[in-house]
């Protein structure tokens, strides 16, 4: 059987992490191809619904990344985001979503190598966890035509 290839949604800010990912690309760094990058203006724009929707649509893991604290293009968007994620990730854990399914990171525009490593790590973590069968089961139930 082929090795499980996790599908990972990455929500990144356009100013730092996206630029960092770009740098990784232009530097021809090789890294796992499991991540689908969704670019947003700022980590402050990343609503928690994005994470839930990603899981609903079949993501096995989610990566959220933006500018390092203090480096936000909009002064404090990442600080606001950090405060929200501090609590939100605990709520997800509490409802039974493995903490390794959601990764938070700061990757600057200069950290192409960090991005490549991060993606590899996140992919490895997700691979270890296996497919997110719990959530996929919800999809099966929701889409099942069987009588409830």
């Amino acid at each position, binding site marked *: 059987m082929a090795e499980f290839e996790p599908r990972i949604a990455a929500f990144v800010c356009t100013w730092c992490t996206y630029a960092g990912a770009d740098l990784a690309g232009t530097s021809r760094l090789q890294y796992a191809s499991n991540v689908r990058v969704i670019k947003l203006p700022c980590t402050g724009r990343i*609503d*928690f*619904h994005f994470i*839930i*929707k990603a899981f*609903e649509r079949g993501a096995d893991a989610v990566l959220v*990344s933006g500018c390092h*604290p*203090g480096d936000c293009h909009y002064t*404090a968007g990442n*600080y*606001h985001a*950090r*405060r*929200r*994620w*501090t*609590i*939100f*990730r*605990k*709520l*997800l*854990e*509490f*409802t*039974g*979503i*493995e*903490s390794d399914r959601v*990764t*938070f*990171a*700061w990757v600057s525009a200069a950290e192409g190598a960090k991005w490549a490593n*991060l993606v590899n*790590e996140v992919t490895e973590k997700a691979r270890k966890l296996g497919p997110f069968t*719990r*959530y996929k089961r*919800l*999809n099966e*139930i*929701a889409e099942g035509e069987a009588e409830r």
Partner: protein
Amino acid sequence: MIDQLRRRARELLTTGEAACIIGYANASVPGKAAPIVITRAEDADRLVFHAACCNNLAVYLTRPEIRKLGTVAMVAKPADVRAAFVLMQENQVRPDDVKFIAVDVTPAGECTLLAQRTREELLDYLVKNVPPAELADDALKDVAALEEQTDGERWAYWQQQFSRCIRCYACRQVCPLCYCSRCVADKNRPQWIETSAHGRGNLAWNITRAFHLAGRCVGCGECERACPAGIPLMKLNRKLAKDVRDSFGVHAAGYAFSGEQLFAGYSPSDPNDFFE
């Protein structure tokens, strides 16, 4: 006590200090109490306060039908005062538009009318006498018990609970702090939360409801009481209250009627350990 309460209500109405009183009256079902809105002084005798008076009446402060009536005086338990304070803090209610007829139940179970009337007096009373119920050691035991389980067990537990949700939104409608004129659950462009009462939609809804109250919930327990499916919603609320306290070292919500709301602000020294 009840005579004092009625007298105060009558006084507020006759002097015109308040246009209506939101309080409790005995319900038709024996032993139960229901919210009541009165506008005439002679109806003050219908007001009661006893152990069965559980509704958080601050929910009415933001309702358009009630706002139309004018200045509101509310019979307010500590949780109701806290909810009203959060509404003031979030600029949903003008502080001068609300008068309090504050009540409390002593540890011995005795209902009392508080002498405190102003926001400042009531805040002082809350800080000195009313620790946040949602953070009481006893109340956090079941949260801790669940935290100790594996994620698989927690998932199974909540899935079983959420599977009963019928999406009646009673939890949202009774919550004094769910005041959005159009809830994200009622929006469909885009549709973040599926309206269907299946596991996927129910999980999205219940996570959303809980998280939108993080740092704001005053622990009144109305959502859980109202839930016709018996989902232990307070377990989520208490978990969040605990995490907010532990992560940011702030006091529970509703112990201030002005100043910055938790998620409206930030600190450079907020936790950073979970970032790669």
